[in-house]
């Protein structure tokens, strides 16, 4: 069965690349006059619920919104079921779980687009509304998170039945691969700015990693008396990358699996706290500095899902605030691109950092204790493969639009059609994060010492050093202006 498949077929990471690339390739049909994904569902801000859903392409204008939704569900289900088969999951349980997660996510997106919640000031008149919360349609993400938290913490038995399909990392990585194409088209319209974001994002994470990790490790070892086996995964989990870093570091220093797992359960809970707090803080205080806000999300919020999700929320909230307060219309997606870029460089850095730790542990700390040998293959083993998918979709459309500028409009149409799936995978990520965030962990005996290191590190210096570094590299840089 699946155990016979090579790692290329058994890894969630690789499957995010396959699914993302498939959606990307199908979306490119419009470049050759074939509208293969135009039937995908698009959610719009609504006052009349019958106008909330429609097919994303005008070619499918006659298709009722509910059918577009059902078609999108069926397509996503089939794609993920194929992946689930190769990943060795229980397909029946996956089907049920996926269906519930998709349905709740779609409902949250629908409610999140309700005019009184979502409409920005420039849209109120057209919708016949006197006021609105100005949260944009991305309010659906917050609703999905809240729904997940409620279900996950109040109805654990029901949540366990969804476990097979509760895979936020798979969903977000697939969404990121799809998103690469849209960001490539955006980057082609402002190559100087995109280059700046990539270069400065790389600069920002290098020293953030070095400073964060060392401080948390020192704090855990010196003042909280944690052993090396606990302190290293804790430092990686708390300081930068969350779950994947804790697990990679645990493996690098040959910690028992129970250690990174316990650290990870705490990381997920605090990532939710960050996801709920930081975008709103950024909206209040950083709407003058949108790119600082985007980079801050990438540097401060743990786990890929929560970091990129917070980038999406901050993108919407800051644009809405800038419009309401200053009448400035920023183009969509640039803050999200900044958050995603910094987060992905961090992910790439996990491999290098865990390699360094493995070398130090192997040659200095555990020298002679184990026959462990460390090779450069360790870096590849830890390399997040979905980054390859992102770079590929990003580079393909960037190069294509730069080479043939006349493709800009049709490439934007293609990415709009892929975006249908990106948005739904994003929302499912939010809901799934809520489902797996078990706040009862905070009441577990012994958690206080672990949580104390986390809280002091996170709110004592990580968030603020991240903000400072983001400001150093991104202040004064603005997204391109839109048309309103």
């Amino acid at each position, binding site marked *: 069965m699946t155990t016979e498949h090579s790692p290329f077929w058994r890894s969630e990471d690789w499957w995010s690349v396959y699914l993302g690339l498939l959606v990307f390739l199908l979306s490119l049909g419009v470049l050759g006059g074939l509208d293969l994904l135009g039937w995908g569902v698009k959610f719009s801000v609504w006052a009349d619920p019958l106008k909330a859903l429609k097919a994303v392409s005008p070619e499918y204008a006659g298709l009722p919104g509910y059918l577009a939704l059902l078609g999108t569900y069926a397509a996503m289900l089939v794609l993920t079921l194929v992946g689930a088969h190769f990943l060795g999951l229980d397909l029946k349980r996956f089907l049920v779980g996926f269906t519930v997660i998709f349905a709740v996510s779609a409902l949250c997106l629908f409610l999140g687009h309700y005019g009184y919640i979502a409409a920005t000031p420039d849209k109120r008149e057209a919708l016949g509304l006197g006021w609105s919360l100005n949260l944009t349609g991305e309010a659906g993400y917050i609703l999905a998170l809240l729904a997940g938290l409620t279900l996950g913490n109040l109805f654990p038995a029901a949540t366990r039945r969804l476990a097979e399909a509760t895979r936020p990392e798979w969903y977000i990585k697939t969404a990121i691969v799809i998103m690469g194409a849209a960001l490539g088209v955006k980057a082609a319209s402002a190559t100087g700015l995109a280059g700046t974001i990539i270069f400065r994002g790389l600069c920002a994470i290098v020293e953030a990693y070095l400073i964060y990790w060392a401080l948390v490790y020192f704090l855990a070892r010196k003042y909280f008396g944690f052993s090396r086996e606990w302190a290293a995964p804790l430092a990686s989990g708390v300081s930068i990358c969350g779950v994947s870093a804790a697990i990679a570091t645990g493996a690098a220093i040959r910690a028992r699996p129970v250690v990174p797992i316990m650290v990870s359960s705490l990381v997920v809970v605090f990532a939710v706290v960050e996801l709920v707090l930081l975008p709103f803080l950024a909206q209040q205080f950083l709407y003058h500095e949108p790119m600082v806000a985007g980079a801050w999300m990438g540097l401060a919020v743990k786990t890929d899902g929560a970091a990129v999700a917070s980038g999406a929320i901050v993108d919407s909230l800051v644009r809405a605030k800038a419009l309401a307060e200053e009448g400035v219309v920023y183009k969509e997606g640039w803050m999200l691109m900044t958050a995603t870029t910094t987060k992905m460089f961090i992910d790439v850095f996990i491999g290098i950092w865990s390699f360094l730790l493995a070398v*130090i542990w192997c040659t200095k700390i555990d020298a002679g204790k184990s026959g462990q040998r460390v090779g450069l293959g360790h870096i590849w083993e830890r390399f997040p493969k979905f980054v390859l998918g992102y770079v590929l979709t990003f580079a393909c459309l960037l190069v294509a639009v730069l080479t043939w500028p006349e493709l800009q409009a049709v490439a934007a149409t293609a990415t709009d059609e892929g975006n249908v799936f990106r948005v739904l995978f994003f929302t499912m990520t939010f809901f799934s994060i809520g489902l797996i965030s078990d706040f009862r962990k905070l009441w577990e005996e012994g958690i206080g010492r672990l949580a104390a290191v986390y809280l002091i590190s996170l709110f004592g210096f990580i968030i603020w050093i991240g903000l400072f570094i983001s400001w150093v590299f991104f202040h004064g840089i603005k997204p391109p202006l839109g048309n309103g």
Partner: protein
Amino acid sequence: MHTPREPKLIEELDRMQQEPLLPIEKKLITYSIVLGVTLLALLAWISWTFFEVPG
């Protein structure tokens, strides 16, 4: 059927032994922070001096 009991955090922490900071750990922490702060200054200077922010 007997299934292994899920490990308790409190038991794991109680089992944890006191380990003093080794010189190599102190070096790792110090070099990491010094390198981080130095790179912060250097890369910030390079970014703002040689890479113009697009208007």
